[in-house]
């Protein structure tokens, strides 16, 4: 599903440098990436999502080498093939939960909403326990419910790959475990691959593989 070779990335005005000599993630694999703050976890996820493009090396996701795509093609690819879950949920406050779930269809003409989308939305909402909250606004939900809604939004377009950036970082211990279980369950139900970044060592047990950022990052490893 993911193949990274000799990836080198530098921020234009910063001293930060990320180098990943090699990373392969199989389809359906559940990979956790751990590391200290500032180690480049989020930057790596951005590179895997095509939000940022590396200066050197290659990132191939589902057979597409992202650096070879135009900006528009990369956005379309991301919308259709990659689901993103953020630490701070990132739900739009002025949209209801239902509207937030359908946001990917509203922000780009690359996706089109149909009856199947509606069925999928209902199914996802029922599976994640927010079916009764679809017409509420994010500020009317608990933290756990918000993250469940964010997970649903990431899965709404049936992506092949879910990239989760510390999705439990803002949750209490009970909710952390519940949201993680839900995320893993949904990823499995939908046959997706999961790459999750976290610095919480207690959550690593259910993952197929755990990688340390410092082992991944060639520069730092050296």
């Amino acid at each position, binding site marked *: 599903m993911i193949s990274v070779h000799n990836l080198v990335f530098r921020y234009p005005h910063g001293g930060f440098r990320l180098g990943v000599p090699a990373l392969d993630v199989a389809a359906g694999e559940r990979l956790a990436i751990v590391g200290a703050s500032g180690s480049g976890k989020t930057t790596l996820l951005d590179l895997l*999502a095509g*939000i940022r493009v590396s200066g050197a090396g290659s990132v191939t996701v589902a057979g597409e080498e992202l650096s070879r795509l135009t*900006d*528009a093609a990369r*956005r*379309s690819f*991301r*919308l259709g093939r990659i689901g*993103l879950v*953020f630490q*701070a949920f*990132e739900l*739009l*406050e*002025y*949209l209801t939960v239902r*509207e937030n779930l359908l*946001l*990917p*269809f*509203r*922000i*780009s*003409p*690359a996706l089109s909403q149909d009856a199947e989308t509606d069925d999928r939305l209902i199914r996802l909402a029922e599976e994640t326990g927010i079916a009764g909250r679809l017409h509420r*606004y994010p500020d009317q939900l608990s933290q756990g419910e918000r993250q469940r809604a964010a997970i649903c939004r990431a899965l709404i377009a049936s992506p092949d790959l879910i990239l989760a950036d510390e999705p439990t970082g803002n949750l209490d211990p009970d909710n952390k475990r519940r949201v993680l279980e839900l995320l893993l369950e949904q990823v499995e139900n939908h046959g997706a691959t999961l790459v999750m970044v976290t610095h919480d060592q207690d959550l690593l047990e259910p993952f197929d593989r755990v990688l340390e950022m410092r082992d991944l990052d060639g520069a730092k490893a050296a």
Partner: protein
Amino acid sequence: MKDILYLAWRYLVFNRWKTGILIAALTVIIFLPLALELVLDRSSERLRARAADTPLLFGAPGSALELSLGALYFSGESPAPLEYAAVAELGDTGLATAIPLHLGYRVGLQPLVGTSPDYFRFRNLAVAAGRPLALSGETVLGAAAAQALDAAPGDGVVTAPESVFDVTGTYPVRLRVVGVLAPTGTPDDEAVFVDVRTAWIIGGIGHGHENLEDPTASGSVLKRDDSNIVANAALVQYREITPENLAEFHFHGAIDGFPLSAVIAVPADGKSGVLLEGRYQAPDSPVRVVRPAEVMEELLATVFTVRQYVLAAVALVGAATLATIALVFLLSIRLRRAEIRTMTRIGAAPGRVAAILGTEILLVLAASVLLAGLLTAAAATWGDEMFRWLLLSET
């Protein structure tokens, strides 16, 4: 496009108070100059037309503006009175038709205008229902006055007493409505017309009471000799002029000395007008002649000067408001950085995000323009009345 509109609309609806305030501020800065221009243009056009239609006005020495406003628009204080003899004198010159005007009384809130049948011909006033004035005690109502008083031919209307606390003042007189004029869009629509004699009776100069010479109706006679009959306060005074009691109404004194508010002079031709003006130019003349068109031009020149200052002030306030609104949008974009970042990270093109934000601004602008348009249309409908009321009733 539908999705962009939808997201922009949802943001504005969710932040309805902020949106409402922005729309209100923009509406005001669009509406004010528009309405001011429109109302002033239309009102001044009507004021000018009325003044231009009235060649010369005769009145007592005093304010030309007060005379013009009173005689043309039935507004403001009643002009200082001149004697009825002026009408006869003017008629004697053979240079113009003299139309008397007696102003100052009211029926409800409508101005009562005592005049002659010439006035209706001069102003091209057509009777839409009923018939024209024929006798004292009758009234013909302007279209708006009939509506305001809820009166039609066959009804009666009662004049307003000048002061309910003044027992020596004029008493209410009941007038019979015989006609309603067709609407003209001029101050005539608001007026209650009577003949001049009726206006004098309302003012107490003429009166009617039971015939004291009739022995059967003289229960109140105190003394009777060859030349005089003295009656007590029980004498029945008529408060309505009817065909039956019309003969009992009479005036004490010479009619030439009775008061009028103004006389409209309609010269036979331009030369006659100039000759008439020349005759009354003497500083000690008891009568003043004015050309209403010139008086109104002077008034409007002042109004337009004020308008320039008002427009300049509105422009300044508008610029400040626009700058503030621009700042609000910029700050709002700053506050929404996380939201914008989320949308672009999920897969929105920067151009699409900009389009959503731009559409929000356009929707606010469109709502403001629409609202300002509706308010301007309302101002076009009622602004003329308001303008006349503000300008004419306060002068």
